[in-house]
């Protein structure tokens, strides 16, 4: 007799964070690196 149908259940795709939040953290990192360079220059460690 006809057997019950089977349909494969796929693994859920991993969720991706919203673009604004990712961009916010990118901006924070950019500012951190910038402040590192500014600190170097200000403290005369770098010329």
């Amino acid at each position, binding site marked *: 007799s006809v057997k019950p149908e089977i349909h494969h259940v796929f693994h859920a795709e*991993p*969720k*991706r*964070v919203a673009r604004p*939040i990712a961009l916010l*953290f990118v901006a*924070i*990192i950019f500012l*951190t*690196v910038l*402040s*590192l360079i500014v*600190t*170097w220059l200000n*403290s*005369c*460690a*770098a010329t």
Partner: protein
Amino acid sequence: TDFQEAFNISKKAYFAQVNNNPRLKLIDTFCFFLVLLGIIQFAFIVLIRDNFPFNAFLSGFIICVGQFVLLMSLRLQLGNSFPCISKGRPFGEFVVASLILHFICLHFIN
């Protein structure tokens, strides 16, 4: 009180040494900001409660930790030079090792 006193003496000695040596200042500032970058990445993971993609997360942390370690090795060799090792060698090793680290992290993230 003894601990407080010891801490204050250590801090004074540290800043005296660093202020007199621009190279040490360079290294220590770099290390501090690497720690900051690690904290920012950790805050991101805590916020989204997920470390996907895992290879990217590892890359980001490894470059901070690896660079910190290489800086420490360079710092250790900045004081008295070791016998039979030329003065420029620690810096040369630092540059080569850093390049290898950057190469690995850039490829691992992809």
